[in-house]
């Protein structure tokens, strides 16, 4: 029961905070396994490639179908290469709904939630890890209780709040509850707990106040934790569906996730158009992932592990 007391993740942040110079090279040396050392384990490759086909096929199929016409998409036997190539599906997505605006909405809500959480959770997490104030334990306990409760428990009253504020069908309604996160605070607290505090004390002796210590000394050191929080919040915000679904009914205020549910309603089985829409909604995050793979994989795993 006392894991929270001693910083639970000393090795984590110690290792994470150190600039990871060693990178890829070392992974192979520490990667070791079950199967003996042959030149290349072809059987393993075969199984993995079979798995990759299952993982990637839906994306390939989505891409190909988005360039087919309706007849091509419903052809029996299956049509692999679009015949003819039909580029009108993407245009139809924009005709069916304000897709560009939805894209902007998704972008805005993702940026706003992420910026808010990074600033607020980092500050609160730092305070719980390093400051002493009356009621700290009780307040932290309340934060943890939010973490443990399923999100559906908040939805009805959150909706009432938005209704009474007159915020329904605004981007504010989607964004604001997502600015605050018990999970993010907990994540950052664990991170700060695991950092050595000699630097802070040195800064204090030099006359820095709490804010300066936090801003100039601790924040730069907390970068790995902040990256993890950012990745987690970006993914969650971009993909989030239930809450935006509840508070928006005007298409111009919807994010892409809810927009897609509308597209399904409009084009029930017009799969080429549906694939074009879902492809457009997916691509931005996939592109970001391709560029920031390392951060994504580490961040997801790291933040997931504290959930």
């Amino acid at each position: 029961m006392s894991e929270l007391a001693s910083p639970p993740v000393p090795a984590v942040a110690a290792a994470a905070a150190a600039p990871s110079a060693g990178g890829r090279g070392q992974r192979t040396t520490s990667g070791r396994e079950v199967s003996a050392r042959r030149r290349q384990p072809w059987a393993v490759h075969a199984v993995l490639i079979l798995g990759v086909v299952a993982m990637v096929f839906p994306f390939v199929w989505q891409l190909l179908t988005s360039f087919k016409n309706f007849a091509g998409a419903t052809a029996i036997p299956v049509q692999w290469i679009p015949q003819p190539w039909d580029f009108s599906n993407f245009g139809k997505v924009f005709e069916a709904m304000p897709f560009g605006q939805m894209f902007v909405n998704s972008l805005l809500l993702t940026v706003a939630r992420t910026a808010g959480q990074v600033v607020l959770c980092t500050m609160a997490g730092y305070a719980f890890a390093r400051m002493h104030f009356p009621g700290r334990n009780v307040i932290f306990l309340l934060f943890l209780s939010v973490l443990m409760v399923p999100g559906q428990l908040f939805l009805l009253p959150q909706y009432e709040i938005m209704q009474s504020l007159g915020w329904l069908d605004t981007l504010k309604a989607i964004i604001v509850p997502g600015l605050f996160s018990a999970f993010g605070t907990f994540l950052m607290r664990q991170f700060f707990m695991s950092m050595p505090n000699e630097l802070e004390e040195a800064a204090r002796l030099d006359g820095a106040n709490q804010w300066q210590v936090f801003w100039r000394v601790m924040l730069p050191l907390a970068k790995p934790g902040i990256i993890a929080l950012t990745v987690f919040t970006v993914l969650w915000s971009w993909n989030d569906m239930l809450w935006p679904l509840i508070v928006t009914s005007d298409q111009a205020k919807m994010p892409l996730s809810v927009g897609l549910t509308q597209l399904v309603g409009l084009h029930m089985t017009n799969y080429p158009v549906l694939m074009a829409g879902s492809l457009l909604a997916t691509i931005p995050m996939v592109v970001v992932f391709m560029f920031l793979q390392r951060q994504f994989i580490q961040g997801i795993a790291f933040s997931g592990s504290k959930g």
Partner: protein
Amino acid sequence: MSQASIQASLDSPLSPAASGTADGALRSARRGGGAAHRAPLKAGSASPNGRKGAKAPGQSAWWALLFVGPTGIGLAIFYLWPALRTFYLSFTHTGAFGGSSWVGLENYQKLLSNPALGQALANTAIYTLISLLGIPLAMVVAALLNTKGLKGRGIYRTLYFLPVVTMPAAVAIVWRMIYNGDYGVLNQFLGLFGAHGTSWLTNPNTALVAIAVVGIWAGLGQNVVIFLAGLQGVPAEMLEAAELDGAGPVRRFIHMVIPMISPSVFFVSVMSIIGSLQVFDLVFVMMGQNNPAMPSVKTVVYLFYEAGFINHDQGTAAAIAFVLLILILVMTVLQFAMQKKWVHYE
């Protein structure tokens, strides 16, 4: 633990310790209360970081207010108060014109005698059980990826991870097409082997399984990454010693590797169950309105959404939310109770 272990494996051989402690964090977080309450007392003595600040406590309190205040107020308004309010709502009935009245336990009584809840609980349980199959699958993939000297590990990992960054709504739409009974590519593929598919998502016997398969597909990469991180903390010397003693790869994996990564396995199963019990997005988008198979896939959260935001029956919805809370708590407590039998922390 995974970043822990990934990072550790990149920078230093610390990962076994890291995974153990981070899962400890999860453990205490889930247990909440006691741990948090006692934490700072022990922090003062046991941890080098818990020393009292240099500043006087009075001044520190004002800084703390500044740092914790914004999040504290936000959480209080948008999370803590709503949870209490939902509890209150579960004892009320909302009239057609918005007025609400106290009805005591009536919502719960009606709910428990409503076969729809039993059906939703059964559906959710089946979905959860099926999605647990994703755990051994992820373990196998992670073990294969961890093969010594394997080339292209990074590319494999990226491709397996791809669905994790994909919007569930988009995933659902793509799979709807694949599962289509008339011209879906799955049935055409099965046709190659002379098998006849069905209309997977409108057939009450297959719809839930079909959705759960997509759930496994979508979450596999995340679990693989976590297991891979755990596996990289298993010392090679031990496995090599076992190999010299004549233990084959499968035996080594089952008797040595799995116990050593059991904290990761425990973590993944706790999170999978919590996630599966709350499944909504996939069900909502894959099924669509007027799907004849809907009753056999309605999950607890779907029932909640329907009651609260389609039928505007807040009392019932609130009661469903509390049933869900209890379900999650019971499952989590059970898992923590059972973990002593099979999870090995260093």
